[in-house]
């Protein structure tokens, strides 16, 4: 269980995290979403005590991180893969971390196997690829077999096998009753992994809801219709609550009517249909709709 209450962090006159409150519950995977600069990483740093909040408080298992007696068995943290001395081998890095809690060397070897870095464990971490560095970071997070996992962009730089492993691993961890807070920019991956999502933008919480609810409230169901007589069909289905967009000469995207009703209306008038595909919104659509105004570093539309 992670709780943030009125968490605020200012760097000079810039407010990185602005009065953020949320609870991350055990037994679920909570996705932490937001544009670059939204304050996700700072929030995670505040939770584990690397940064001190300007005001408010964060707690893990009801206690401030700095007051935990066994931080590594309580919380596994992956903040960024570059939290390793480049001159030390992966195994020695893990040994040094494990030593702080009296975690035995057998556990070090276990997490090396789990994270799939056995072949490079004795190499200096500075020589690691992005993906291997990421795996080492995950191995460090798992050392204490923690109740809570806080993973900032864990799949960044991982190969597809690694991405799937992280997904299965955090799902399994949640099924065992652990708390998982996970950030990612890969919406399709997040949609498969998270049960619950917290969306941040400009330092504030924009949404905190079960994933399905979020998608439902922030997207619209569209029916894609292909017909040789688009004008006739548009006239047939048109109405005050119906929005029709034509994206190709024979293609209409209809919002506001179910597919069955469109099919019936077309049949009544003898309009042939070549395609009738209902599409539901994705997490990505919901996310973009939600964060549209709060994107700090917006990409210029290509014209």
């Amino acid at each position, binding site marked *: 269980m992670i709780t943030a209450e009125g968490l605020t962090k200012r760097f000079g006159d810039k407010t990185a995290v602005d009065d953020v409150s949320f609870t991350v519950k055990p037994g679920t995977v909570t996705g932490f979403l937001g544009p670059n600069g939204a304050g996700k990483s700072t929030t995670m740093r505040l939770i584990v*005590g690397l940064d001190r909040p300007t005001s408010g408080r964060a707690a893990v298992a009801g206690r401030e991180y700095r007051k935990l007696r066994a931080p590594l068995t309580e919380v596994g943290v992956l903040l960024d893969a570059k939290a390793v001395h480049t001159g030390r081998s992966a195994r020695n890095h893990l040994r040094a971390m494990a030593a702080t809690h009296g975690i035995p060397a057998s556990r070090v070897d276990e997490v090396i196997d789990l994270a799939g870095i056995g072949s490079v464990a004795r190499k200096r971490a500075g020589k690691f690829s992005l993906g291997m560095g990421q795996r080492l970071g995950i191995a460090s997070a798992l050392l204490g077999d923690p109740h809570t996992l806080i993973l900032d962009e864990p799949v960044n730089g991982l190969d597809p096998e690694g991405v799937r492993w992280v997904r299965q691993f955090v799902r399994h961890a949640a099924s065992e009753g*652990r708390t998982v807070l996970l950030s990612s920019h890969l919406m399709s991956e997040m949609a498969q992994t998270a049960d619950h999502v917290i969306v941040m933008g400009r330092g504030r919480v924009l949404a905190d809801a079960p994933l399905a609810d979020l998608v439902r409230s922030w997207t619209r169901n569209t029916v894609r219709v292909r017909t040789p007589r688009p004008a006739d069909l548009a006239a047939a289905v048109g109405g005050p609550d119906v929005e029709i967009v034509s994206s190709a000469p024979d293609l209409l995207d209809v919002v506001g009517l179910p597919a069955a009703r469109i099919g019936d209306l077309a049949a009544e008038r003898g309009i042939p249909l070549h395609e009738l595909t209902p599409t539901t919104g994705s997490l990505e659509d919901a996310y973009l709709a939600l964060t549209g105004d709060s994107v700090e570093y917006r990409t210029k539309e290509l014209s």
Partner: protein
Amino acid sequence: MTTAQAPAPTRTSVDTGRRLTFFRALRSEWIKLATLRSTWWSIGIAAALTIGIAVLIAQAIEAPGFDPIQAVVMPIQFTMLLAGIIGAISVTGEYSTGMIRSTLTANPVRGSVLAAKSVVLALFLFLSSVVIFTVAAVAVSLVVASRDQSIDWSDPSASLLPILVSSLSMAVFALIGVSFGFILRSGAGAIAATVGVLFVLPIVASFFSMAGEAWAWVVDASAYLPVAAAQSAIMPSETAALDAPVAFLTLGCWVVGGALVAWGVLRSRDA
């Protein structure tokens, strides 16, 4: 919410004894120090310099009344910088690589991290220096034996004590480096500050000995710089700038003062 929710399965906490203790923090810091090649390179260079220079001095100085133990401890003038730099980079290496974030999440009690690192660095420098100075003493004995001179091991003040106090001084210099490391965080900055205090300030102060009476206080004050205080402590004599107890107290003040400032910075600044 109207629907009853099944309680999430909770894991029962079993006390496996896996928790943070200061002794374990010490072990972790030792593993970190011992698993970096730079540590062993630096200490190897310190050993080579100490033994080499000690032998050279023993061969060169044949003046009557020259105590051979002086040849053993004199190379500290050079190796003190290595001690300071080992201390500084043991901290700044963590900041430059991001390791500090792993260190501080594994042990969020910042005072404990500072204390553990300081104790490990001090012990490592002290013990390795004892070994190095002892080897140098044996080498010097071999050199001066040809002139019928020897290190008088029955007189601790002419053998064992200078070696122990020199080793202690090396630990003090390393701790000054550790403090600057935590205060400045940047490798270049911390090394510059450490070299400045250990090496540059004494030279600057020595210029003032040519200035008039009005500047005598600078020369007096320079006796309290770490290396000058160490010299007074290593070879106590009537002519030493500081009495031995004052010299030890001065070294202690450098360590405690540095650690306090480092602690203040470490606990108040974001990592």
